[in-house]
């Protein structure tokens, strides 16, 4: 391994998922032709996570790791053929002043430039009761573990804790697999934080009619059973029988390895400026859903964005920023105005979102009928910023894909955006 901070140590990307891969590709595209290393904690080459709760969980074939990884592995551009992917390696600590990382095996790794791309991990419920039989869906290994458990069960009763997008998608996939599924969501209707109350309630009615049970406005206080989960205790005292539980209750930022470096703001992910420079560190950028950055599409408040498009968008901006910093140049000052987007498939519904609907204070039903979601609905999300009502998000349900271009174009600001099309 190189000497700490030695010139020629190249760039190290910490994090080996979509954000890490896109960072490596974009560093090459931005002209970094020196050494480039991606350090990932998982033993697998980068793969696409959204299909995990849908196609991979629902895949009718065997649970062979290589086969399932093949379904979701990212293609790698020729430009990253010489990138060193260090897999199964966890970075445990760092000294950004000395440009040195400490790995779990005790070795150290120096760098000239650093990309923070360690993303998130699922939050786990810290509640009394057995831990066996409780699953999460974040990694390929998580889903394989769940698949193997399901393969040994007949019509299992599943309780999904958390009615966000991952919880609801998972519930829909499990229903199709023949499970008896109940979603427990303490906040409100499924995905209400993003969709708003009216659309979320409509989705709840739609999915309920097809067999997904929802218990909303009630929390989970513990699990029953001896060694293995046998049920879920609700905060109102009720008990639900459960052969297994899926926890989909949000995520935690993987920033522990950055703790102890003075000047960093790690209160929610890693605070960055609008060029993705990590505030308080030199020659360091952040990419993906760990990066907290301002987007003038909404206002000037830095936020993390957990949408699938963000690793790619942030990599396209962070890479040229880092290359400029390594050359001692001032990074491009053009505002960074990405248009976040994500999709979700739930039984016969396909959601497509542009912008940040979750930031809205007002929802407008622009097209369709909330009692006939499958026929197509368009919701527009507005937020009042400094007295001005702004269109900040769009959610389309079952609208023809031809419409997407126009829906996304509503957020493009040609005078501002660069590299965000």
């Amino acid at each position, binding site marked *: 391994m190189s000497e700490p901070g030695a010139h020629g140590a190249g760039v190290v990307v910490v994090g080996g998922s979509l954000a890490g891969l*896109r960072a490596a590709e974009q560093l090459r595209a931005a002209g970094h032709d020196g050494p480039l290393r991606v350090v990932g904690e998982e033993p697998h080459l980068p793969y*696409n996570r*959204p*299909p995990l709760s849908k*196609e991979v969980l629902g895949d009718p074939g065997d649970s062979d790791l290589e086969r399932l990884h093949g379904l*979701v592995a*990212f*293609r790698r*551009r*020729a430009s990253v053929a010489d990138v060193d992917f260090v897999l199964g390696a966890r970075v445990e600590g760092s000294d950004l002043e000395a440009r040195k990382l400490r790995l779990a095996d005790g070795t150290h790794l120096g760098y000239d430039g650093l990309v923070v791309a360690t993303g998130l991990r699922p939050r786990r419920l810290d509640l009394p009761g057995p831990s066996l039989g409780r699953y999460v869906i974040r990694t390929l290994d998580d889903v394989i573990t769940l698949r193997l458990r399901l393969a040994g069960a007949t019509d299992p009763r599943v309780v999904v804790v958390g009615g966000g997008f991952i919880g609801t998608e998972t519930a829909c996939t499990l229903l199709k697999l023949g499970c008896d599924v109940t979603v427990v969501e303490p906040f409100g209707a499924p995905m209400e934080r993003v969709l708003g109350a009216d659309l979320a309630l409509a989705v709840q009615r739609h999915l309920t009619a097809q067999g997904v049970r929802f218990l909303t406005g009630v929390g989970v206080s513990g699990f029953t059973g001896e060694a293995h989960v046998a049920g879920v205790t609700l905060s109102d005292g009720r008990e639900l029988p459960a052969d297994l539980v899926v926890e989909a209750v949000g995520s935690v930022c993987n920033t522990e390895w950055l703790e102890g470096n003075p000047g960093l703001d790690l209160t929610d992910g890693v605070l960055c400026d609008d060029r993705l420079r990590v505030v308080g560190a030199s020659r360091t950028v952040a990419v993906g859903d760990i990066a907290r950055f301002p987007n003038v599409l909404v206002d000037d408040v830095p936020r993390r964005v957990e949408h*699938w*498009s963000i690793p*790619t968008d942030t990599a396209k901006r962070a890479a040229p920023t880092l290359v400029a910093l390594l050359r001692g140049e001032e990074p491009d000052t053009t505002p960074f105005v990405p248009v976040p*987007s994500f*999709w979700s*498939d739930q039984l016969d519904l396909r959601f*497509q979102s542009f912008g940040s609907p979750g930031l809205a204070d007002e929802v407008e039903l622009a097209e369709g009928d909330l009692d006939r979601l499958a026929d197509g609905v368009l919701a527009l999300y507005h937020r009042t910023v400094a007295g001005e009502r702004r269109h900040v998000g769009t959610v389309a349900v079952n609208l*023809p*894909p*031809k419409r*997407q*271009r126009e829906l*996304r174009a509503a957020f493009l600001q040609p005078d501002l955006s660069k590299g965000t*099309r």
Partner: protein
Amino acid sequence: MQITVDMKRCQDHGQCAIAAPDVFRINDEGRLEYEPTADESLRDEVEEAADVCPVQAIALLDG
């Protein structure tokens, strides 16, 4: 530049048609149509289309 789309994997999300409208389009039936070869000058937008495909069905054969 040669382009292939794994049509068994494609779910007609249409993100590619936003990124590279010269190469990919969604027809009136809502299905993807695309040009199997494209000029090198379109590489950036085809790379972008491949990047943003939700199911990662797009491959560039020579690059």
